[in-house]
């Protein structure tokens, strides 16, 4: 059964199921080297569209002060109005321009994704490497801890961590990053296992290279590809969770523009301006799709290419 990234998004499948690691033959003459970087023509059409969508949304967020029609915090006297020439997507309950808030909100979404993935990498990569190359006790212990993490629904675990850190965009995405770290750790451990007996590792250790250096210089570059791909698959999930946490007012704090948070207030005035409810959701769905299409494309290039 193939695993769709969307299924992981909903916490339906554990993330490490996404990428399967091809076991290396016990003894290969493969040299320790970085995998070749995927070439552009190997990128299929869907992935290119995903890349384009992501690039456009990120750039729109960065260039928001130039392209947004209004200040996202400016309060116009027209409250909760529908589409008009002045406000293409209408105004919200406080009289702020919905379109401008959406454009500015892109930054918070991708910033959140970036923070979460960074934390996942910082926590998950050492976790996986130590489990893979740190000996039996460390392996067993660290993987049991990972199992424990997996019995919490991702959103619930994130909320639990936010309860300690306090609600804010950075805190909430750190929490999400921590919640996802075990999946990266497990995947990285799995992909280092076959390298334990790879020739270049045996040669390096027989030459007296320190284990720390072997792991960092030889094991990590050879085992990292599935992890990087997995990170992109996680990106789309993270984006939706960022919106969900913003929605619950546990992520980005109002009045800062964020898609999730805007959605949370928008449906209360659905009758007067339905576009304010529909538009943020469309943004979330498109952005999440873009990242997951990009991730799928990368998976093909890196793992099967």
């Amino acid at each position, binding site marked *: *059964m193939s695993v769709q990234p*969307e299924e992981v998004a909903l916490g339906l499948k554990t993330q490490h199921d996404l990428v399967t690691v091809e076991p290396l033959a016990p003894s290969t003459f493969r040299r320790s080297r970085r995998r070749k970087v995927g070439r552009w023509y190997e990128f299929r059409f869907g992935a290119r569209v995903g890349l384009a969508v992501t690039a456009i949304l990120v750039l729109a967020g960065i260039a928001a002060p130039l392209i947004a029609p209004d200040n996202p915090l400016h309060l116009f006297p027209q409250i909760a109005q529908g589409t008009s020439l002045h406000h293409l997507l209408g105004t919200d309950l406080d009289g702020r321009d919905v379109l401008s808030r959406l454009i500015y909100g892109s930054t918070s979404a991708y910033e959140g994704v970036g923070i979460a993935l960074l934390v996942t990498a910082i926590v998950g990569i050492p976790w996986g490497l130590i489990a893979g190359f740190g000996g039996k006790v460390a392996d067993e212990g660290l993987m049991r801890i990972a199992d424990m993490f997996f019995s919490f629904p991702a959103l619930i675990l994130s909320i639990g961590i936010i309860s300690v850190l306090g609600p804010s965009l950075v805190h909430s995405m750190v929490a999400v990053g921590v919640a996802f770290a075990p999946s990266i750790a497990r995947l990285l451990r799995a992909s280092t296992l076959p390298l334990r007996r790879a020739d270049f590792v045996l040669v390096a250790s027989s030459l007296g290279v320190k284990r720390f250096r072997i792991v960092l210089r030889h094991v990590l570059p050879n085992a990292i590809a599935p992890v990087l791909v997995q990170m992109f698959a996680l990106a789309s999930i993270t984006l939706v969770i960022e919106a969900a946490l913003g929605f619950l007012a546990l992520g980005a704090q109002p009045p800062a523009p964020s898609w999730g948070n805007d959605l949370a207030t928008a*449906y209360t005035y*659905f009758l007067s301006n339905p576009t304010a409810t529909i538009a943020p959701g469309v943004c979330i*769905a498109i952005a999440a799709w873009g990242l997951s299409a990009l991730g799928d494309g990368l998976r093909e290039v890196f793992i099967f290419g």
Partner: protein
Amino acid sequence: MRKMILRRVATSAITVVGCSILVFVLRYLLPGGPIQDMLGGSGQSGGGGGGTVPLTEIRALENRLGLNHPVWVQYWDWVVGIFHGNFGRSYYSDEPVRTVLIQRLGPSLELIVGALAIAVVVGGGLGIYSAIARERKGGRAVLALSGLGLSIPDFWLATIAAGFLGLELHLFPPIWPAGPDPSFVDSIHYVILPVLLLSIVAGAFICRQLHSSMAETLRSPYIRTAWATGLRPRTIYMNYALRNAIGPVVTLIPLAFAALVSGTVLVEYIFDIPGLGSEIVTAVINLDYPVVQATVLLLAIVVAILNLLADIGLGLLDPRVRRGV
């Protein structure tokens, strides 16, 4: 079989203990600690408010809450308390956490059980249908729809449903009634839309999983043999194919449950349903850590138990698992 169950029960128990440690220790990983949160007002780090509170008051509060003991003593007291049904008191309302949990459990259970039932029956049925009819238009349409159901953010769909069906068309009550909680029969009226919304994602997931599992089974040689022997299609699909195809899907039901739990948090928030999901959000905002702790632990335990049941169920369904092949 007995040995397998015992082994699974043991690993589940270890996981649950680990989860309880994780939930408990989380709080102490950060400087400041609960006292500063409680006395320091809004600032989470407590830097602003902490200084103005007299030290004696802090000590008194620490004594009352047992926070002056070492962490492991506190953990032990907490665990012993849980076995006595005592989850501590809410920092915010000073009510026993148990009362809060019991009050809030009802609506959440209604939502999750209802949605899971719909998801399994409808999603499972559609999955079987789409696998049988995978070459036809109907089957493909069902599969495409299930893909769509998985990729739309559920809380967005819920807001639109609340806005459009609730506020605009008045088909469903958009929010929970104020005042005392309605009786079970009355509450069905209020949970019907949330349950339907929740079941979309879980149902789509189960549909897709059962589809791929069933489609794979239907391609296997023994099914071709069954056709060749001239058995009725119904017998082939239900008795031969489904029994084999359903195994992997059974183990995924706890995952669907976990997704439903996440979904309930959002849906309860949107429809203002006083369940565990909305409680945990309020508790986080109120810095009411005992409530968060208890709720998170409760959910993790339920997920662990469901995982256990699913594995045992798979053992009952599939003799190969039972014999540990």
